[in-house]
């Protein structure tokens, strides 16, 4: 898959290497981590940014889009609690325990006190990395993924959430990643989350951007869910329009582990959400649904690789995209069912609502099945707002923009309505309804 041998390096590619030469030694971690970083940057230097020849990067030309590599931000800008709440909007009112990172740095001041919390161990990664035991765990959890974005993340990772969930956690844990927007720069986040046997937790993960400057966010989450444990994960991405958001979820599911994810994407100039999901246990469940609302020249890419290694797994991917102006959404999901994974039940659905003639929707569901007794299916549709419904709503007094807002909310509703936490569900429903008018 090495394919960059003859290609001239882009400014961004040389930029990342140069930044690592400068700051690589100052990044947190013991010798194990330092070695990981060096291996990762070597891998990146060899491969470069992904080219469109790569199957999973076919519709997002990162080499072209990423003009420059920003230098890692050296310190956190100032974000007050009031500012943060305002930026979080409806999600700021959610009853939750927050872990807040400003410009990629942990903020104790804005975060809740986790020390007394039941069934949760929480620590900023920057601190965890200096512990010897943790770095060994990290190394082990590190995905063996041939992926340049992951390599860059390993090389530059500076902070993030290190969480261990031991039992049922009552309140949602809210991971907040906020950019002050005071200057442009690189923010590399790494979350390491382990969920013990039979534990249950709701994770809310928000990315928001203040100010005028954009950042390059590279965020990786290593999430391991042990036997019978359950994670409800809501990801909200509303960064400013100068921002590039590259994120990776590396998920391992043990026997009967349950993972439900709901994404809500409205921000950033470019966002890429890649998922690497491995069914390492039997009868596990992966259910991801996404609402993506893009306009202007925004580009959002959700690319998933779901690997059913063991029997009786269930996987669902459903992404709903609302596109206006010249926005573009890419949804690719590849589901592999290995010979052992009998009785796998997999389904993918990708749908778009096109509000303009100039937007683009690229949907690519893919199945690779090596077992004979499975139920798998996929579908993709693309449509417009139904004019008859629009008239029906308007005839009751709803102005055009509100009627459209309601129909947009109705369209993405399926991706939100299964969120267990009512406050979060209502907040996102409201955001969808008001998106067009905002």
């Amino acid at each position: 898959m090495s394919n960059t041998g003859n290609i001239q390096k882009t400014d961004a590619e040389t930029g990342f290497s140069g930044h690592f030469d400068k700051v690589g030694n100052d990044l947190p971690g013991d010798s194990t981590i330092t070695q990981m970083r060096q291996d990762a940057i070597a891998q990146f230097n060899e491969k470069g940014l992904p080219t469109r020849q790569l199957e999973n990067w076919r519709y997002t030309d990162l080499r072209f889009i990423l003009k420059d590599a920003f230098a890692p931000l050296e310190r956190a800008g100032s974000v007050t609690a009031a500012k943060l709440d305002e930026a979080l909007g409806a999600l700021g009112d959610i009853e939750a325990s927050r872990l807040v990172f400003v410009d990629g740095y942990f903020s104790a001041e804005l975060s809740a006190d986790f020390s007394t919390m039941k069934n949760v161990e929480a620590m900023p990664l920057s601190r965890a990395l200096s512990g010897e035991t943790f770095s060994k765990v990290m190394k082990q959890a590190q995905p063996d993924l041939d992926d340049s974005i992951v390599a860059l993340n390993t090389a530059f990772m500076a902070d993030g959430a290190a969480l261990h969930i031991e039992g049922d956690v009552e309140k949602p844990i809210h991971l907040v990643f906020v950019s002050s927007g005071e200057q442009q720069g690189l923010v590399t986040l790494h979350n390491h989350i382990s969920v013990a046997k039979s534990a249950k937790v709701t994770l809310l993960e928000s990315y928001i951007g203040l100010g005028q400057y954009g950042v390059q966010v590279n965020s990786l989450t290593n999430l391991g869910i042990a036997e019978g444990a359950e994670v409800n994960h809501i990801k909200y991405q509303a960064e400013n329009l100068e921002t590039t958001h590259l994120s990776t979820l590396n998920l391992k599911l043990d026997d009967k582990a349950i993972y439900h994810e709901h994404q809500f994407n409205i921000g950033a100039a470019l966002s890429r959400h890649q998922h690497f999901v491995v069914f390492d246990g039997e009868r596990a469940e992966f259910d991801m649904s996404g609402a993506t609302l893009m306009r202007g020249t925004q580009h959002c890419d959700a690319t998933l690789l779901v690997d059913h290694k063991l029997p009786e797994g269930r996987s669902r991917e459903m992404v709903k995209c609302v596109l206006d102006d010249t926005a573009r959404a890419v949804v690719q999901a590849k589901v592999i069912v290995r010979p052992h994974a009998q009785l796998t039940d997999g389904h993918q659905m990708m749908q778009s609502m096109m509000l303009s003639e100039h937007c683009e929707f690229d949907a690519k569901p893919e199945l690779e099945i090596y077992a004979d007794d499975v139920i798998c299916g996929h579908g993709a549709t693309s449509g417009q707002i139904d004019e008859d419904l629009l008239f029906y709503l308007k005839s009751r007094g709803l102005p055009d923009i509100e009627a459209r807002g309601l129909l947009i909310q109705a369209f993405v509703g399926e991706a939100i309505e299964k969120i267990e936490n009512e406050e979060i569900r209502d907040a996102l429903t409201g955001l969808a309804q008001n998106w067009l008018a905002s």
Partner: protein
Amino acid sequence: MLEIKKLHATVGGKEILKGMNLTIPKGEVHAIMGPNGAGKSTLSYLIAGKPGYDITKGEILWDGQDLTAMTPDQRAAAGVFLAFQYPMEVPGVATMTFLRTAINSQRKARGEEPMKTPDFIKLINAKAEIMGVSKDMLRRPLNVGFSGGEKKRMEILQMVLLEPGLCLLDETDSGLDIDALKTVSDGVNSLRSPERSMLVITHYQRLLDYIVPDKVHVLSDGKIIKSGDKNLALELEKNGYADIVNAA
């Protein structure tokens, strides 16, 4: 007062209304009957402002205002309400959210404050009970999976909640069982007032036993060809349209 003057209108390039005149003073209920395809629903869509229905000549005035210059939501705020012949299913839109948005949109257009949540809930519960709309229906997405009769009740519930000045009912009686016909008619009658005009489109005289009209008109081939009092409906029920259509 609703005034329709020499109205010509086309749909998909085809002329459907061909010089129609109709005046409904405030406080009056008029019924329109007529053969299938005569243009009855077209007339109601033209008043409500459905896109794709083009007026080539003539006027539609409500309270002296030119409705044709307004968007559908402006017409609604001015008091126009159409109970659809085929109410739409709107998956994903919660009925309560829709009702509240509709009420508050119209209040806003009139420069009024939005209705407070407890007041709204109280109002809905009271009116829904009268209209025989169950709690379960209110919890579902708007009209989704409702039976034909349930959809019609929901239409009239909306009308009762929005208290429009001009009520247009397009075959509200079709699909209703005998009890529902009574409930729905009671709902409509509760809105009869010296301040309101109503237009009831129907094929059946029976509805007019419940909602007794001041005038009955026969619409055929895009024109009113005969008008009379409520006895005209009885006559039509007995003899059909043939004689009147041939005489016109």
